[in-house]
């Protein structure tokens, strides 16, 4: 008995985590998928009716706005965070004094709740108080910065705060990558008189391709899941101008009492994540098994 226990112990201790994740993630996703095919409103119903919820979803102008915002937000957030993160990493790689402390400061935004730091952002973006008032105070009377309350521009304030939150994280990833580049090759290039920027463009950055990929995956899933940023900054407003899929789903489930819509929007988000993450995991697995 004791012998049996010792040989099977590894599996037994793994089981709770395995089962918990299986039920709580896949079991509940299956439930959501099921409900998304019904006519559920305030309460879930379980008779399958087909794809009516998805038809309603794709006809909804609010969902349209949410998806458009996701494209704008995702593209800008991922692109700018990566570029900024790379620039910051190269800067920190130049033998800076007290590097540990500054690395921590760059990472602080990622460690703090956006719900909380959103306070400061609301102040900065508030036309009457923050940046606009400050620049006007310096004598530039015509300066306006009212993106927060402008329906066409409000989504860009969400992008700004998101970049602020994540570029330190990307920086830390890239910094680790820069440190792992083979210094012999770089020294050889320098002896050959190749300018530093060429060394970066042609040798260092290409050799960090895997890090770009992981940074992209992490940022992409953060973009799709973005929720507290919007809640903290704009609450989805003005109107629903800054809705993202996650806040759309939240509004449908809890203020509109439309579970069917909530479930179908959740499924679409899930499909988008799958489309990005699955190929990545597949290539990871292949690389590991070879």
């Amino acid at each position, binding site marked *: 008995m004791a012998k049996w226990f*010792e040989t099977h112990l*590894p599996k037994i*201790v793994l089981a*709770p985590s*395995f089962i918990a*994740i299986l039920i*709580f*993630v896949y079991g*509940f*996703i299956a*439930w*959501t998928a099921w409900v998304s095919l019904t006519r559920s409103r305030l309460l*879930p119903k379980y008779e399958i009716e087909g794809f009516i919820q998805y038809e309603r979803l794709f006809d909804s102008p609010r969902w349209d706005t949410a998806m458009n915002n996701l494209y704008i937000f995702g593209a800008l957030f991922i692109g700018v965070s990566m570029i900024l993160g790379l620039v*910051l990493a190269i800067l920190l790689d*130049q*033998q*800076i*004094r007290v590097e*540990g402390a*500054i690395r921590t400061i*760059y*990472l*602080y*935004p990622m*460690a*703090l709740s*956006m*719900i*909380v*730091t*959103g*306070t*400061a952002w*609301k*102040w900065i973006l*508030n036309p009457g*108080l*923050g940046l606009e*008032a*400050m620049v*006007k*105070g310096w004598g530039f009377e015509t300066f306006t910065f009212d993106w927060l309350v402008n329906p066409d521009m409000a989504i860009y304030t969400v992008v700004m705060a998101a970049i*602020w939150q994540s570029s330190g994280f990307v920086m*830390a*990833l890239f*910094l*680790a990558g820069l440190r792992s580049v083979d210094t012999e090759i770089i020294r050889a290039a*320098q002896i050959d008189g190749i300018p530093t920027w060429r060394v970066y463009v042609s040798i260092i950055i290409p050799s960090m391709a895997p890090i770009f990929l992981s940074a992209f995956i992490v940022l992409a899933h953060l973009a799709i899941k973005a*929720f507290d940023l919007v*809640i903290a900054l704009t609450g989805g407003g003005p109107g629903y101008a800054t809705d993202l*899929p*996650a806040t759309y*789903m939240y509004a449908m*489930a*809890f203020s509109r009492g439309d579970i069917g819509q909530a479930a179908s929007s*959740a499924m679409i988000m*899930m499909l988008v*994540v799958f489309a990005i*993450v699955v190929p990545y*995991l597949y290539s990871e697995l292949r690389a590991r098994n070879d």
Partner: protein
Amino acid sequence: MARAVTTQRKALNTLAAWTVGLLIFFPILWTILTSFKTEAAAIADPPVFLFFDWTTENYSAVMQRSDYAQFLWNSIVIAGGSTVLGLIVAIPAAWSMAFVPSKRTKDILLWMLSTKMLPAVGVLYPIYLLFIRLGLLDTKIGLTLVLMLINLPIIVWMLYTYFREIPGEILEAARMDGASLRDEILYVLTPMAVPGIASTLLLNFILAWNEAFWTLNLTAAKAAPLTAFIASYSSPEGLFYAKLSAASTMAIAPILIMGWFSQKQLVRGLTFGAVK
């Protein structure tokens, strides 16, 4: 990429790095400064930076709100509880994957981690309904359980990356010397795993402390933690900036301080073990 850099260049680079650091830190610094202003000074036009009458009235005002202590206590219980529970479940699992790997271990790990990528909204509603049925809605136990489950994949993954750095030969040597499985775990493994467990603990505490999606959706008044408190405080545009800043400062202070004194763990934790 380490290269020889002249002293002057080095000073210039350091200056640039700290300027960027200050810019990044500015929103946090501003919150802290505002928390010491009067409400009138907080919305002064043009804004004042350092030369205002420093006051702690916002802190006493926030503290006097009967419910603040309750929110703080909820945050501590939920973040601490879900972290401890998560570690209890995850340590054996990570141990098993790191030291007794099977052919499927890598697949299981990646699969676990991939679930963390899925948007939480996909499982929100079923959990919400389940909570209503079990009477767990707006309770600390319910939220603790959910946050534990949500962060479990990350905890397992983090612990695994740490455990893997412990050389297996040491365990073999201990076994050769006649150590039982219990001795092995208690006297050999645990002491070597403490740093890894500590930074996993820190990361998970931070994640749970900051959690907004689940806390806003699954709590109302009784079990709501600080994030929900601040979200409720910030509704009317600019009404109580100074008091809101005081509440915010108190909510971020533990993380700022803990993070500063465990910088290595913070960096490694926030990058999911990618940066050592």
